[in-house]
Structures are given as C-alpha cells and as structure tokens.
C-alpha cells in the first residue's frame, strides 16, 4: 500500500461517481430481456389465422412438471379452428407448476406453443394462475393480472420488458422491442 495507490484508488471511485448507474429501476423502466427468454407461453397461429395447435398432447407428455392439460376435439371441416384434423378444445397450463424449461416447445410438432416474454404473473388465487387458451393466444397482450389491471384502469397493458427483436418462432407476437419497433 503506497500513497500513490491510495490516490489512484480515489481516482477510480471518482470516475465511477460520474458514470451512469447500472441499476435498472425495474418497475419504472423495462427490463432488457434476451430474445430467447423463457416467459409465458404463446399459442401461435398460421398466417391465415388458423391455430397451429392440433391438440396432439405431445407437449403435455413432454412436460416434466405435468403442468399442461389438453383436451382435443374434431375440427368442423366447414369452419376449422386449426390447420389439422383436430384442435385443442381446452388448452390449460398451470403456471404454478410450470418450470419454464421449454420442453413443450421442443416437443410440439407444429410449433404451436412457444415460450414468450411475459413474466409478471404474480397473482392472488391459484385458479387465476391456470392459463387457458384465451390467455395465451398470440393476439393476447400481457399476463392475467396485467390484463385485469388494464381493464380496471382503462389503460393499455404495459409489459415490464423490452427485447432486441422478437424471435421468428413467436410468429405474430407483438412484444415491445428496443427502438420502439413492434
């Protein structure tokens, strides 16, 4: 320990005093997520609007936490819901059990279920943490509590994250990207 070292160390801290803090003031400012972040699941659609999910239950079989419940039904040929023979009449994920490992995404033969970015799912009741189809289809923005709040305040859902770009698997999912592009 020399006087020089002491003086130099003062210089180092002074330099940091005038540099920008690295803290992300999270609820006020969005968190920067990576494009492959594992967040709330998204059920994607084909460009023609048909659901990709064919109700095969492979995701439920792959799920290590037994968090997924799928109940398939036959498509009406006149007015199909999905692109295949059958579609998922009920598609539920228990977010309390889900460990966001992404195995469902890997198991899916049609690329219907993709892990998205939403992570602010904290809620008051168990029943509210079971997400159905209506909570996970691509056009839905935000999580259940976020949408509930948006409904109450009359404001749009404000996600707490931002991503550099939306990965192509999340076809049609509108996530806030850096630079404001949607």
């Amino acid at each position, binding site marked *: *320990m*020399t*006087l*020089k*070292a*002491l*003086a130099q*160390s*003062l210089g*180092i*801290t*002074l330099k*940091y*005093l005038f*540099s*920008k*803090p*690295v*803290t992300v*003031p999270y609820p006020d400012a969005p968190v920067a997520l990576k494009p492959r972040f594992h967040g709330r699941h998204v059920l994607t659609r084909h460009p023609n609007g048909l659901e990709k999910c064919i109700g095969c239950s492979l995701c439920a079989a792959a799920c290590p936490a037994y968090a997924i419940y799928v109940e398939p039904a036959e498509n009406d040929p006149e007015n199909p819901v999905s692109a295949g023979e059958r579609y998922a009449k009920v598609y539920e994920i228990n977010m309390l059990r889900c460990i966001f490992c992404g195995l469902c995404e890997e198991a899916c033969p049609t690329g219907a279920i993709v892990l998205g970015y939403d992570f602010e799912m904290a809620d008051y009741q168990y029943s509210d943490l079971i997400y159905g189809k209506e909570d996970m289809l691509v056009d839905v923005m935000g999580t259940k509590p976020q949408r509930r709040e948006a409904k109450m305040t009359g404001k749009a859902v404000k996600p707490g994250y931002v991503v550099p770009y939306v990965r192509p698997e999340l076809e049609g999912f509108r996530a806030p990207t850096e630079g404001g592009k949607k």
Partner: protein
Amino acid sequence: MNYPLDPYWVVALKALLVVIGLLTAFAFMTLIERRLLARFQIRLGPNRVGPSGLLQPVADAIKSIFKEDLVVEKADRVLFVLAPLIGVVFALLAFGAIPFGPPGSFFGYQPWVLNLDLGLLYLFAVSEMAIYGIFLAGWASGSKYSLLGSLRSSASLISYELGLGIALLAPVLLVGSLNLQDIVNWQKENGWLFLYAFPAFLVYAIAALAEAARTPFDLPEAEQELVGGYHTEYSSIKWALFQMTEYIHFITASALIPTLFLGGWTMPFLEVPYLWMFLKIAFFLFLFIWIRATWFRLRYDQLLRFGWGFLFPVALVWFLITALVVALGLPRSYLLYLSALSFLVLLAGLFYSPKPVRKGGGA
C-alpha cells in the same frame, strides 16, 4: 477579542437553531451519504420515498422510533439509557463555538452561539466527553462484543486525540489565541493557516477522520469482527441516537477543519457571509464520503501504530518547529517555506511507489 454580547433570548434562539440545523443535517446526511456511496458504486441508491428519495430520512425516523426498544437482561439499565444521551448531547454542544460569518452578520447579531476565549479547549473537552457515551454504552450493554467495540473505540479515540491536539498547537502558537473568532480573523489578515502549517493540517484532517470514526478508521463498527461494535445491543431510537452522534461528529469535524486551517468563513475574493463556510463544510463532507467509498478499513494494530508512530511524531515535530519560530521571533515566512517543503515531500511520496514488501505475519 471581545465582541458585543447578544441578548440571552437571541443566544437561546441561536442554540435552538444550531440543534435543529444539526439534526436536520444529520437526517439528510444519511440520505446524501447513501446516495453518494451508491453513485460511487454505480448504483442509484434510495430513491423510492418521495421525489428522488428526499423523504427517506422521515421514513427512517418513523421506523427507528417505532421499532421495539430492547434492553438486554444483563444491561445496567440506567447507564444503558444514559450512554446514547451523553453521546448526542456532547456532540451537539461542540458545534456552537464555530463562527459562520463576520461579527454582527446574523441579522445584526453574532453568527455563533458561544464566543469563548477557551474556544478550542472547550471543543476538545466537549468532543472528548463523547467517549464516555461510547464507553458507557459498551460497558452497560453487558455483552462481550459491545465491550470489545467500546474498548477499541476508546483506545483509538484517545490515541488519535494526541495527534489531533498537538497538530492544533501549531496554529494556536501562531495566532496566540484559543478563540476560534481570533483564529479566523488572523487567517483573514495573514493568509490561511494551512499555508503555515501544512503537516499540522494533514495530521488534523486524518485524526479528525479517526475521531469521527469514519472509514479508514471505523473500527468501532467493524461489523465483520464485532457485530455492531459498541452499539451491538442497542436498537430503535437509542441506536438512532448513536448514529446521530456519529454524524454530528462528522459534520463538526468537517466544519472545524476549514475553520482552523482554511480560513473559516473568509475567502480572499468574493466574500459572501455563510456561503464559503457552507461550501467548505460541504467539500469536507464530500471528501470524507469519497474516502469511505474508496478506502479499506485498517487493522486495529495498524490503526494504533499509524496514530502513535506517524501522526503523533509529525504533529510533535511541526509543533516544535513552530514553537522555535515563534519563540526566537523568526519571520513567519520560514514556516511558509517549510510547509511548502512538506507539501513537496507529500508529492514525492505520491510519485515514489516501491513494490510492497511482504514481511512475515502478513503485515
């Protein structure tokens, strides 16, 4: 020097102002220190309560008042309660003697509470009484950690008091008065005292850090070794009183260094009453926080060795030199040259940096 005395009610009012001012300053210093330390560590610091965290001190106060006030079973109840009060009262007393502006500049009254011919001695006596607060707290707690912490603080405070006191003798000899107003006036006429007594200034600044138990010398609260030091067993408002004592010592030290060595409220140009004094205090507060953000804590033996083996001899040698110059009636410019020389020695020490030598025992 004699200045017209203020009526008693003005003195009482000023005393009240000083107390309120110091307590407010304490509250906001905690916030400022936390925010500054955070910025030094590239964090944001507390910014949730009120606009940019400005109401944090209020929240802290409410919290510390309503926390459970524990008194441990083995504690000596009377002294346990008395110790923090002693600390705070004597810390508050010290500030009154410091002049903040030219005589008669406080709405026609004097900008100080006390004008004592014994000024410096009074400050010493009062700020030393704070050791009783610390020591009694450690003793009355009936806890090993508290006792060890208080022993440490008392030993380091008493050791550094020597360097501090002898460093002060140089300016006192030059000015020929213990009165703080006289010291400031002398500096107004003859130039700031750090020019005449640079080593004494350095020793005083370092020892003042130790007196306020600030970072390189903050052994009393070395959490890693002593849990909480002398206030381990204290909680709630009593603990807050100890924090208060510490911060008031810190503020007083930051006000005393400029008063004694940097011309107090005076400035060679653009003299605005109060402004320069407050700026100088703010500078030293910032410097001490900066040091806290940067340097590490000394080991206990290093602390004592530094105090006795370096600060004390340097202060003593400079005191003897000053005494020689004053006693033989030599021109004061000799002291200026010697001060400049010591400054050069310090600079040389900054640029001369040998590889650290490792001796046995990890010294």
